[in-house]
């Protein structure tokens, strides 16, 4: 797994190291270099000789072999055309402007150029130069259809529209500010609009044309620089003739538009269907479903409703809940082929891959989804406003190629390796954007990952697989990639405590093995497994994408050990506050502090957990011995044992520690509240045991007094049970006072497993949890109070079901 990944990323790295020349920079440098050559300095000739040799060598590498097309396609997808000086030629091949047969290149090119000349002649009219026509028809005020003047004035409107957009093309780039470049853009767009009367010119086309013109220009610059030294081949001369920039741009643009044009068309291709909708509107139809069936809208809806749903149901639900229709952001993404989402150099790399992949540009859908997944955690933890902000101003992406890899993986997980490095990168970037907090943590977690892999038992791997199984099942990718990712996944998720908890996990697993085996058939994961895992991930989701849980782990508060409660709530409060302003750089320091404190909390918590675990084993031993001995004052011993167990529970965080009580009653007796301590999910595995043990739990809510006592468990198995359920409780309570995203994450697994589980063993409790979790999902994640209440709903429901 790791090997394959590192191999795929390897060419990328070398590429960046060896030829990490910024094409823009080379473009800027070229005129200067050319100038010095003209000044006649002799030593430059040797340089330029070398330049030309490398230039022609690159040409040969790219185009002179039998299977050159496959080679350059591969290079395009791998991002190796980033600094190529023949990118325009490659694009021409990808876009099928040039035929595959190299002998046809020159002929084909000149044909296209003459045809453009003709088109231009026809469409760019000058009524003054027209031959003598009937003055009645051909006068400036004529409104006759056949009048050149009339056409001239109509063209003028169209031209004004195009020019308006052209002047705003890449305003940050000097190149596009030049008058002649603008004229080229305008003329090409104008001719295209006139050639395609039905489509005309639509806003956004200029953004597709501009990069094409730019790469043509860059290649021409490189060519003229290289050809100063030596005679280039005939092919190069023809293909890279700067005079025909406009012609070539038109040819490439038309070919690109063959695919892209229906994304621009506002033509309602299925009016019949729309009528039907108007008559019998679908119940529960969303606004975007009711609109006219425009191709582009249908496309983005399809991407969000099917692709995204398939790959990340959680994000899909979240976007749906916020009622963010995909066309709000997706129209621009697709129409401009992400032109506005990346800086130009990255954009060119994306286009390399898009074009190289296929002229039909079907990679667009997957890049679309990959882009959503890249910011999924930010999205899920955001409210409507922030979500829109993220989508409309897509955050800067560190390595755009990872996005492509991910898109490829999404499309075909069997043929493409899972881009693991990408995930990690993503976290880093995310935090950079969020003020550079938690950087160290993520790094640590990345380091911890390989270590853990050795220590974690097979059962843990199984858990990992189980955990991603629900998502993978729908993705039909449960095979090798799934299991492989399972191996790499849990370590990333629980880097800090992973080693400590591994044995416990094993234990836990062992205990429920029989049950788990029953579960095996349905690929769903047993709830308690999920919970157990969940408590460690804290916020990981069951989907494949929950790899990113690593980030959330670092960002999320630890399981609450009792003493930290008040302290912690302040942290979480400030965290949530800072979240709203997280965009501001000034918050970065605060975030970093918080992350540091949270790191300390995590450490403390890990210690507590360890203590609790040890206590658990020893207490178990003592209890067994005592039970065998049948001592006289057995009851008292057992009661004190129970007290010890409570302390252990507090250490583990499954019991909430109430500070006021401590002050008032000197910790006389820790009281335990609601008897929903036994989570519904637990009792099927150990249902017989449960009868005796009424594990209740003090539910901690800030400002709420807690309460009653309950008997402690007396059986060993019940103890084991505590170990499980407490984790669930812990994670729940964490979710309550911590970031809202956690709540959402936590609930998600329950929801997902629910159907399969209920069919297997029991139904009612799950139904309860479903309703609770779904209601939770429907609330805004930024709504703290509602989340709290929902959570309490959840916990109340389950005991009732018991």
């Amino acid at each position: 797994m790791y090997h394959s990944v590192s191999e795929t990323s390897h060419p990328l790295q070398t590429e960046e190291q060896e030829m990490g020349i910024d094409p823009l920079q080379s473009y800027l440098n070229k005129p200067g270099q050319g100038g010095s050559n003209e000044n006649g300095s002799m030593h430059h000739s040797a340089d330029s000789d070398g330049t030309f040799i490398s230039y022609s060598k690159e040409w040969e590498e790219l185009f002179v072999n039998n299977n050159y097309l496959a080679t350059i396609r591969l290079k395009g997808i791998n991002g190796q055309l980033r600094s190529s000086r023949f990118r325009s030629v490659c694009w021409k091949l990808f876009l099928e402007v040039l035929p595959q047969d190299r002998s046809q290149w020159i002929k084909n090119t000149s044909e296209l150029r003459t045809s453009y000349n003709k088109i231009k002649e026809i469409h760019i009219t000058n009524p003054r130069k027209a031959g003598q026509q009937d003055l009645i028809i051909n006068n400036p005020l004529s409104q006759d259809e056949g009048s050149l003047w009339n056409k001239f004035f109509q063209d003028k409107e169209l031209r004004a529209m195009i020019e308006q957009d052209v002047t705003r093309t890449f305003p940050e780039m000097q190149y596009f500010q030049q008058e002649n470049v603008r004229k080229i853009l305008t003329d090409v767009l104008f001719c295209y609009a006139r050639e395609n009367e039905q489509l005309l010119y639509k806003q956004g086309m200029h953004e597709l044309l501009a990069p094409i013109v730019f790469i043509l220009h860059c290649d021409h610059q490189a060519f003229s620089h290289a050809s100063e030294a030596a005679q280039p081949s005939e092919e190069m001369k023809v293909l890279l003739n700067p005079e025909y920039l406009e012609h070539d741009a038109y040819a490439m643009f038309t070919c690109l538009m063959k695919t892209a044009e229906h994304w621009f068309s506002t033509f309602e291709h299925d009016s019949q269907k729309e009528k039907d909708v108007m008559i019998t509107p679908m119940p529960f139809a969303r606004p975007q479903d009711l609109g006219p069936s425009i191709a582009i809208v249908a496309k983005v809806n399809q991407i969000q409703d099917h692709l995204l749903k398939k790959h990340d149901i959680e994000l899909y639900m979240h976007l749906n809940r916020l009622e963010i229709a995909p066309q709000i952001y997706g129209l621009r993404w697709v129409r401009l082929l992400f032109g506005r989402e990346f800086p130009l150099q990255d954009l060119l790399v994306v286009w390399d891959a898009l074009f190289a992949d296929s002229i039909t540009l079907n990679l667009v859908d997957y890049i679309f989804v990959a882009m959503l997944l890249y910011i999924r955690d930010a999205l899920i933890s955001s409210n409507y406003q922030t979500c829109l902000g993220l989508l409309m101003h897509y955050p800067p992406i560190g390595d755009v190629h990872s996005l492509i890899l991910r898109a490829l993986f999404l499309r075909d997980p069997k043929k493409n390796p899972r881009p693991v490095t990408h995930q990690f990168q993503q976290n880093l970037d995310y935090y950079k954007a969020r003020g550079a907090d938690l950087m160290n943590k993520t790094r640590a977690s990345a380091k911890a990952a390989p270590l853990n892999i050795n220590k974690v038992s097979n059962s843990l791997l199984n858990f990992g697989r189980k955990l991603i199984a629900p998502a993978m099942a729908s993705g039909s990718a449960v095979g090798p990639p799934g299991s492989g990712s399972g191996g790499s996944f849990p370590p990333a998720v629980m880097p800090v405590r992973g080693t400590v908890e591994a044995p416990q996990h094993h234990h836990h697993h062992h205990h429920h093995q029989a049950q788990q085996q029953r579960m095996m058939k349905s690929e769903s994961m047993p709830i308690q497994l999920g919970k157990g895992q969940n408590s460690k991930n804290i916020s990981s989701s069951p989907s494949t994408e929950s790899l990113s849980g690593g980030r959330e782990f670092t960002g999320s508060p630890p399981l609450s050990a009792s003493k930290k409660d008040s302290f912690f709530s302040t942290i979480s409060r400030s965290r949530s506050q800072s979240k709203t302003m997280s965009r501001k750089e000034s918050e970065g320091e605060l975030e970093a502090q918080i992350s540091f404190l949270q790191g300390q909390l995590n450490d403390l918590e890990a210690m507590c957990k360890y203590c609790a675990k040890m206590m658990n084993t020893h207490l178990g031993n003592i209890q067994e011995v005592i039970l065998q001995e049948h001592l006289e004052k057995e009851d008292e011993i057992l009661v004190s044992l129970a007290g010890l167990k409570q302390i252990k529970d507090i250490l583990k965080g499954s019991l909430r520690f109430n500070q006021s009580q401590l002050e008032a009653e000197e910790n006389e007796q820790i009281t335990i509240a609601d008897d929903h301590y036994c989570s519904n999910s637990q009792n099927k595995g150990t249902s017989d045991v449960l009868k005796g043990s009424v594990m209740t739990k003090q539910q901690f809510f800030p400002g709420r007094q807690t309460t009653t006592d309950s008997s402690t468990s007396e059986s060993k198995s019940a103890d084991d049970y505590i170990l499980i359920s407490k984790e669930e409780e812990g994670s729940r309570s964490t979710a309550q006072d911590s970031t809202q995203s956690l709540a959402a994450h936590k609930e998600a697994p329950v929801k997902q497993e629910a159907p399969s589980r209920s069919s297997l063993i029991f139904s009612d409790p799950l139904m309860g949890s479903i309703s609770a979790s779904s209601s939770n999902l429907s609330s805004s994640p930024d709504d703290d109070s509602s989340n709290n209440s929902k959570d309490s709903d959840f916990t109340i429901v389950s005991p009732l079901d018991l």
Partner: protein
Amino acid sequence: MVSGRAAGRPGPGRPVWGGCATPGLGRPVALRCGGSLCRSVEVIWLNVPFSFLPCEKLVLVLGDLHVPHRSGGLPAKFKKLLVPGKIQHILCTGNLCTKESYDYLRTLAVDIHVVRGDSESLNYPEEKVVTVGQFRIGLIHGHQVIPWGDVASLALLQRQLDVDILISGHTHKFEAFEHENKFYINPGSATGAYNALEINVIPSFVLMDIQATTVVTYVYQLIEEDVKVERIEFTKP
């Protein structure tokens, strides 16, 4: 040739006030005493010296509407032809008579130059010199030129104003001719209003398509309910 004699005056095309002229931008260049009248002459540059595109402009020339005194308004066929967005400048030889007529012209183009007619209710300058592209165009109603429409008298005025094209009206009779390498235009009456000497007046107006050194004049006349168009070309020597 203008440029030879126009020493000391800002030549056409020089950015005097920085580019595209706006209405009312004119300033009196000189106070001249010509004939018995002391006239103030407004000089306006309409070309866009910074433009990268060749200066191609459509200038509508019309006058003597006499609405509502002698005519109900522009013929419908003319109104249909005159649509906004095509014409850059309007030169009016006067006798709009009402503000409503002026407002109508404003809907066709923002840049309007009007001179005072003999039955004008609003106050306009007696004459104007407007520069479009490379052409200096003089604009006068024409009742001051005696005898009305006389070529020699117009030529005198042309020399006084030092223009390439002299536009005058008042006779309600379309005329466009070249005289001593200068071009003279009389757009006639756009509404076909009668004048002191003539009752049956053919409604007419003129559209000048000004290119570099050439002006193509389109004459629109409403003859028996049909719009006839003539084309006259004049090139600056």
